[in-house]
C-alpha cells in the first residue's frame, strides 16, 4: 500500500505538474494569437466617404484557404461627413475617426455597438485627414491632404482632443507611421509618390524612398514593426493597377511588391497578428461603374489572393440604395483597422 | 520681242463645266508697238490682258516679256517685275479712296525695289497729273473727283514707274470725247517718244484705229483683225 501510495503520489505530482505547465502555457498565450485550427476571426473597421463608418466580420480559414465575411453594421457620423482615416487605440477599445472637416470622433467599440463618446474639432480649416497612426507616445498622428503636413493630436482626454504640433510638411500626405522606438516618423506623399523618413527628435528628413508614377496611400507597420506595408493605386491615371509594397524598416528597401490587378485601387493594408495574411482595402475603379470597395485577402506566403468581401455594393443593393457618386462623397472605403479575436 | 505669248489657255469653272476664257491665244509684239484688242463683252479680252500682265497664271502656255519667262518667276519676283516693267490702266475706278490724287499717282513707287527720292516722285507725279489736266486737283481725294477725273489720275499713275509696257483695259471708258481725244493723243505721244509698248483693250473705234496692229477676241480665241 505504502509502495502503491508512494507511486500514486508521484503519479499525482507528475499529472499536477503537467496540468500546471499546460495552464501556464495557456495563460502565457498572447491575446492576439489566432484561434486554434488556423481560423482567424476578427472585426474590420473602415472609414468611408459615405458619411458612415462600416464594420465587418471576417473569417480567414487557413486550412481551406477561404475568406468569409459580412457587414456587421454601419455607424452614421453625426455631421455625415466623409472620411479617409481610421485608427485603433492601443487597447483596441477605441476607434479614432477624423472626418475631412477636421472633426475627431472618438468611438467606443468595447460594447456590442460602436458608440461616439466624443466629437471635437481640432482646427477650423478643412484638413482632409488621409492617414493616421496611434503613435508609441500615445499621440494620434494624422496626415493632412489640404495642408500636406502631419497633425499631432493629444487625445488623452478625447473630449478635449487638442492639436499639439504640425510638421513634416510635403505636398499631399497620406501615410504616417512612427517606429515603436519613437526614433523615426515615416510619411507617404501621394502626389510626390515617395515615402519620407524623418528623425523624430530633430524632425530632419533622413531618407526618401521614391516610388514614382503612383498615387501612394496608407502605410502600416507589420505587427513586429520590421516591415512597412505600403498601399498604392499603381498609377497616377484613373486606370488603377493597385498593389502594395513591403519595405524593410531597417534597410528602407522595397523587398516585395504584390499586384492586385487592374480596376483595383489599394488604399490600406491590415495584417493578421502573425503577418501571414494581408487584408487589403481596395476601391473598385472606375468608381462610377463599380460603386464598390472590397477587402481582398492575400496569403503572404503564396502571395495569392484567397478571397474578397464586398464592402459597399452588396450592402447597398441589399438595402435598395443606389448612392450618387460625386466629388468628396464617393462610394468607397479608405482606411481600415482590425480587431482580432 | 517685247511680249511673246504662246498657246495661252485659261479656264474658269462655271457651274459644273469649265469655260475657256482664253483659248490657245498667241500674242506677240515688239518694243514700242501699239496693239489694240477689240471684242464683245465677255470675249476674254480682260483675262488675256491679266495673263500678259502676270496678274493671273494660265492653265497652259508660255509668256515671255522682254526675255523673261514670267511664268517661271516666283510670286514675289513677279510682283517686282510688274512694278518695274509694266503698269495697268483698269476699266474700273482703280484709285485708293484714302489717298489724294497725288498720293495715288506716287503709290506704285512705294513698292519699287529701287526707291527714288520722295521729292522726285512727288514732282514727277505732279507733272503727270498736269499732263492729264489735273494740276489743280493734286490734293483731292477720289471721292471729290468725277469718274473721268479719277480715270485720268489712274492714267497718270500708270506712267510713274516709267514702265515699258502699258496694259490698258478700256482706258477711256468714262471720259468725254474731248478728254478721250486728249488721252489718245497722250498715249500716242508717250508711245512715240518713250517707245512704251501699249496693249489696249477697247470698244472705242478711234482708239483701236490708232493701233499699229488690231486683234479681235471671239469666245476666247484671238485673231488678227
Amino acid at each position, binding site marked *: 500500500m505504502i509502495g502503491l501510495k508512494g507511486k500514486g503520489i508521484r503519479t499525482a505530482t507528475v499529472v499536477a505538474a503537467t496540468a500546471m505547465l499546460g495552464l501556464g502555457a495557456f495563460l502565457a498565450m498572447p491575446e492576439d494569437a489566432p484561434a486554434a485550427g488556423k481560423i482567424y476571426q476578427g472585426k474590420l473597421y473602415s472609414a468611408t466617404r459615405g458619411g458612415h463608418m462600416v464594420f465587418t466580420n471576417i473569417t480567414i480559414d487557413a486550412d481551406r484557404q477561404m475568406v468569409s465575411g459580412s457587414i456587421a453594421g454601419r455607424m452614421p457620423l453625426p455631421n455625415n461627413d466623409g472620411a479617409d482615416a481610421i485608427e485603433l487605440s492601443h487597447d483596441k477599445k477605441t476607434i479614432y475617426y477624423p472626418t475631412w472637416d477636421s472633426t475627431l470622433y472618438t468611438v467606443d467599440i468595447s460594447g456590442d455597438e460602436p458608440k461616439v463618446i466624443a466629437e471635437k474639432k481640432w482646427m477650423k480649416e478643412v484638413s482632409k485627414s488621409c492617414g493616421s497612426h496611434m503613435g508609441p507616445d500615445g499621440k494620434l498622428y494624422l496626415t493632412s491632404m489640404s495642408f500636406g*503636413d502631419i497633425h499631432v493630436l*493629444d487625445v488623452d482626454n478625447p473630449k478635449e482632443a*487638442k*492639436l*499639439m*504640433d*504640425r*510638421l513634416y*510638411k510635403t505636398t499631399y500626405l497620406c501615410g504616417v507611421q512612427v517606429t515603436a522606438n519613437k526614433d523615426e516618423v515615416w510619411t507617404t506623399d501621394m502626389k510626390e509618390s515617395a515615402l519620407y523618413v524623418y528623425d523624430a527628435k530633430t524632425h530632419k528628413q533622413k531618407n526618401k524612398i521614391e516610388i514614382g508614377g503612383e498615387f501612394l496611400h496608407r502605410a502600416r507597420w507589420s505587427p513586429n514593426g520590421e516591415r512597412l506595408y505600403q498601399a498604392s493605386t499603381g498609377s497616377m491615371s484613373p486606370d488603377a493597377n493597385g498593389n502594395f509594397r513591403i519595405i524593410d524598416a531597417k534597410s528602407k528597401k522595397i523587398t516585395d511588391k504584390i499586384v492586385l490587378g487592374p480596376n483595383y485601387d489599394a488604399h490600406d493594408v491590415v495584417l493578421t497578428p502573425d503577418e501571414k495574411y494581408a487584408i487589403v482595402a481596395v476601391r473598385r475603379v472606375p468608381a462610377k461603374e463599380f460603386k464598390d470597395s472590397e477587402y481582398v485577402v492575400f496569403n503572404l506566403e503564396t502571395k495569392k489572393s484567397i478571397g474578397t468581401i464586398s464592402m459597399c455594393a452588396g450592402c447597398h443593393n441589399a438595402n435598395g440604395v443606389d448612392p450618387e457618386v460625386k466629388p468628396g462623397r464617393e462610394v468607397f472605403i479608405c482606411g481600415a483597422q482590425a480587431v482580432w479575436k | 520681242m517685247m511680249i511673246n505669248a504662246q498657246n495661252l489657255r485659261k479656264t474658269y469653272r462655271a457651274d459644273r463645266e469649265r469655260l475657256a476664257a482664253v483659248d490657245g491665244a498667241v500674242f506677240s509684239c515688239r518694243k514700242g508697238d501699239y496693239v489694240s484688242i477689240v471684242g464683245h463683252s465677255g470675249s476674254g479680252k480682260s*483675262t488675256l490682258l*491679266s495673263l500678259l*500682265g502676270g*496678274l*493671273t*497664271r494660265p492653265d497652259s502656255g508660255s509668256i515671255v516679256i522682254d526675255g523673261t519667262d514670267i511664268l517661271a518667276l516666283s*510670286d*514675289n519676283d513677279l*510682283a*517686282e517685275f*510688274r*512694278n*518695274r516693267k509694266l*503698269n*495697268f490702266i*483698269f476699266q*474700273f475706278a*482703280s484709285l*485708293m*479712296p*484714302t*489717298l489724294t490724287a497725288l*498720293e495715288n499717282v*506716287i*503709290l*506704285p*513707287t*512705294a*513698292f*519699287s525695289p529701287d526707291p527714288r527720292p520722295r521729292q522726285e516722285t512727288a514732282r514727277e507725279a505732279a507733272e503727270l497729273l498736269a499732263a492729264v489736266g489735273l494740276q489743280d486737283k493734286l490734293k483731292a481725294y477720289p471721292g471729290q473727283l468725277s469718274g473721268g477725273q479719277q480715270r485720268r489720275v489712274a492714267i497718270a*499713275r500708270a506712267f510713274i*514707274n516709267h514702265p515699258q509696257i502699258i496694259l490698258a483695259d478700256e482706258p477711256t471708258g468714262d471720259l468725254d470725247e474731248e478728254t478721250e481725244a486728249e488721252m489718245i493723243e497722250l498715249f500716242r505721244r508717250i508711245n512715240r517718244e518713250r517707245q512704251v509698248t501699249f496693249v489696249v483693250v477697247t470698244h472705242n473705234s478711234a482708239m483701236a484705229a490708232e493701233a499699229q496692229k488690231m486683234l479681235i477676241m471671239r469666245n476666247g480665241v484671238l485673231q488678227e483683225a
Partner: protein
Amino acid sequence: MPIIALALKNIRRKLSRSIALALAVALVAGLLFAGAVSLKGVTTSIGLGSQRLGADLMIVPAGHEEQARTTMIAGRPSASYMPAEVFDKVLGIKGVKRASPQIFLSLSTFQCCSPVDAFLIGFDPENDFTVTPWLKDKLAKPLGRNEIIIGRSIPVQIGDQMIFYGQTMTVVGYLADTGFDYIDHGIFMTLDSARAMIRESRNNDETAAIEVGEDVISTVLAQLEPEVTPERGAVFVEYEIEGVRAIASQDVIGAIKNQLFTLLRMIVGIGLALWLVTIALIAVVFSMVVNERQREIGLLRSLGAKRRTVFALITLEAGILATIGGLAGVAGGGGLLLLWKNPLLAAFKLPYLWPEPEFIAAAAILALLAATATGVIAVLYPAFSCSRLEPYEAIRQGE
C-alpha cells in the same frame, strides 16, 4: 509712301468702326493693367506690412481671431482683452524667441484740423520689436509717462500735445508710412501710460471711463526661432495656453493671397473671355474689311505690292488700332484705379501702397504688348488669306 501711312489712312477711313474696335481692346488692356497694378499693390502692402510688423504670431483672446485678422489686414485694432499673464506664458513656450504685449484702448476720434481715426495702443518699449523699428528718428530717451509716438497719418508734429481721456500726452516721435492703418493711425504709449489712462479715466468725472481692467492686454506679438514655422508656433501656443488663439501672420497673408488669387482668377477669367471676344470681333470685322477691299488689294498687287506687303498692311492696320486701344486702356485703367482705389479698398478692407514704378511700367508695357498682339493675332487669318489671292482673282471678286 510708306505702308504705315496707308495703314493709318485706312484706320481713319471708317472712324466709328475703328473707335469701336479700339475700345474693345482698351477694355481688355485696361482690365489687365488695372488688375495687375491693384493686385500687386495690395500684395506689396500686405507683404511690406507684415514684414515690418516683424511678428510671426499675433496672440489674441479666443473668439476674437476674426477681429485680429482684420487688424492685420485692414489695420483696425479691436478692443478685446485677456489676462496680462498670457505674455509670460508665451515667453515660456518652446520656439518663441521674443514676445511683446500690447493693449488697445477703445477707438477715439482725434479732431484737429480734420477728423482722423486714431487708435490708442499701449506697448512695452522694452520688449518691443514691432513699433520702434519704424521710428523715423530714434528717441533721444526712453518713452516716458505721458509721451506718445504717432503713426504717419496723425496730423500733428513732434512736441505737440494731445489730450485723451483727460490725459495730456506729448508727441515725441513719429513712424514711417506703412500702408497699414493699424500703424499709420496708431498713437503709441507705454503699457504703464495706457494703464494710468485707464485708471485716471475712471477717476476723472469729466471724461468717459475706459471700462477695461488694469491687468489685461489685448495681444501678444511673438517672434519665433527660425526652425519653428509660424504654423507650428501657433499650435504650440494654443496647446499650452487656454483661451487664446495664435494667428500666424503668414496664414493671414496666405488667406489674403487666396482671396486675391480668387479675385485674380476672376479678373483673368473675365479678361480672357473679353480677350477672346475681342479677338473674334476684330477677326470678323477685318474679314469684312478685307472682303470690302478685295479690289483695292488686287490693285495694290497689280502695282507691284508683294504678298507680304499686303499681309503687313492688314496686320499693321489691326496692330496700330489695337495699340491705340491698348494705350487708351492703360490710361483709362490707370485713371479709374486712381479714382476708385480708395472706395474699393475700403469696401474690401485692404491696405494699399502703389507698386514700384518699374512694376507699373512693366505692367503698362505688357498690357500694351498684349493689346497689340490681340490685334495682330486676330487678323492673321484674314491677312494671310487675302495675301494669297491672285491679283486678278482679287480684282474680279472685288467687282
